[in-house]
């Protein structure tokens, strides 16, 4: 009936798919990872590689452990006393969970943007300056702040009110502020845990455009509920699902399929992926 056929997710994904996937440098190599909260295994048997200067998306239904998984990359799970991570996360070949690795140093290299914008109750300037300040990067602080806001496409909107509270910004602006805050410490990787799920469509588009920009300089990992979003921004997509124990009891997240986004949304190898991306499940 409609005159314009909506694009399929596969078409969206193919639009930005590079014909030849270049041989990319591996940033993270995850080997047989599992995370448990006390006796409750949230996710298990995950192995995948995250590539440099690419956007990698984790999709899947609620409870599939994708948020738990992304928090392994910057050791945020360490903050939950009952969480136990087993397996390896190699970052440029080095095990992030080795004894001599300081989680504080990990988080300085691997930034994170959260689901709900969480600006500090301080001025816009102080929000961006917080990271450099705690890391002792105090020279040219104003330049750092400006550069971070520029790269997060927020500078023009806030340059005249840097001293005002960040809480006065709109939700979309707050989220870009959080991205800028993360960029100010010059990370290598940016993790985004459903960064646009609390935002309106226009703000979402801006965040997505930003991801396309940022992947030139950074490696981006994103968790998203929104398959359209994965299709639009991600180069690689991992589909997670929930494995229910045979007795119907314990639910554990598992990695079903990981491939180029265009492949996941056009010709997935696994029936469960196909059911999910075509909307038959989840």
């Amino acid at each position: 009936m409609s005159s314009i056929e909506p694009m399929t997710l596969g078409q969206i994904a193919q639009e930005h798919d590079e014909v030849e996937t270049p041989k990319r440098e591996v940033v993270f190599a995850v080997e047989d990872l599992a995370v448990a909260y006390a006796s409750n295994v949230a996710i298990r048997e995950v192995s995948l590689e995250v590539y440099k200067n690419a956007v990698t998306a984790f999709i899947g239904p609620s409870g599939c452990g994708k948020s738990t998984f992304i928090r392994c990359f910057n050791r945020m799970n360490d903050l939950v006393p009952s969480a136990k991570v087993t397996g390896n996360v190699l970052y440029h070949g080095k095990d992030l969970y080795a004894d001599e690795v300081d989680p504080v140093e990990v988080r300085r290299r691997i930034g994170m943007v959260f689901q709900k914008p969480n600006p500090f109750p301080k001025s816009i300037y102080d929000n961006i300056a917080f990271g450099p300040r705690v890391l002792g990067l105090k020279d040219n602080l104003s330049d750092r702040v400006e550069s971070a806001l520029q790269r997060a496409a927020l500078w023009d909107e806030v340059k005249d009110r840097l001293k005002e509270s960040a809480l006065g910004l709109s939700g979309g602006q707050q989220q870009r502020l959080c991205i800028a805050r993360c960029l100010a410490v010059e990370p290598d990787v940016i993790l985004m845990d459903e960064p646009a799920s609390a935002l309106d469509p226009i703000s979402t588009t801006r965040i997505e455009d930003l991801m396309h920009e940022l992947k030139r300089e950074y490696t981006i990992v994103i968790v998203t509920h929104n398959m359209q979003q994965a299709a639009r921004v991600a180069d690689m997509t991992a589909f997670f699902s929930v494995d229910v124990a045979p007795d119907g009891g314990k639910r554990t997240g598992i990695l079903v399929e990981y491939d180029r986004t265009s492949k996941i949304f056009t010709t997935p190898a696994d029936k469960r992926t196909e059911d999910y991306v075509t909307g038959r499940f989840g």
Partner: protein
Amino acid sequence: MRMSRALKGGLFKGVLFLSLLVGFLTLVVLLVDVFNDGLPFLDRTLLTSPPSGDPDIAGARPAILATIYIGALLLAFVVPIGVATAIYLEEYANKTRWYNRLLEINIQNLAAVPSIVYGILGLAFLVRGIGLGRVLLAGAMILTLLVLPTVIIAAREAIRAVPDSIRQGGYALGATQWQVVSRQVLPAAIPGIATGSILALSRGIGETAPLILIGAVTYISFDPTILGPFTALPIQIYSFLRLPQAEFKLLAAASIIVLLAILLTLNAFAIFIRNRYRRSW
């Protein structure tokens, strides 16, 4: 149907308003009565003279000074200890450990211990035990212990009210736990901590029983020192009231006005701090 619902709503509002009036009117009546009696005696003599058997030249200067000293010492002791305890319990303590749970229960129970018991404790351990004697410092210390649980509980609530997303945001930028606590959690909790500390201070300054027990004397004609004998405004008020001449009742009312003025000044200062930190957000 709609009428009866509106009626119910109106009735409920009326009940709420009446409840408010009980407290408010009591306070107003009290204030009017005290000011009526006390204002004529609220003069330089009251503020600058020591007590005397002659109501015309009697004042409450030593007691006023002592109350100010005690208040200042109390704050200087209770805020650092209380806030540090609250930070430990909220940010560092592993709540699955039995000793941390024991600490928590203990603190909650301490808040319910009658003040006279603290007085006995002070007499036994401070005045006699470590031989401090019946001095102002001992009074301030015992009042510190008395209001410490209140400050801890208020500070914990203020710290707990800081959303976890703020902490996570700090950690995600490579901040250490101490940096997150000192630069994000504490500044955000200061309004609540200030309010709690002021309430605690007000309670401490108004206390009489533990001070009497550790030997705050009722008749002191010289200015108090930290390591000397002392009295305090509530005790002075009580001793004025016990004297037979009617004028001393009015002098007591005037002293009550002074006590109120000190408390209100302190409260105003706390509100000022609170607003200042709010504005800088």
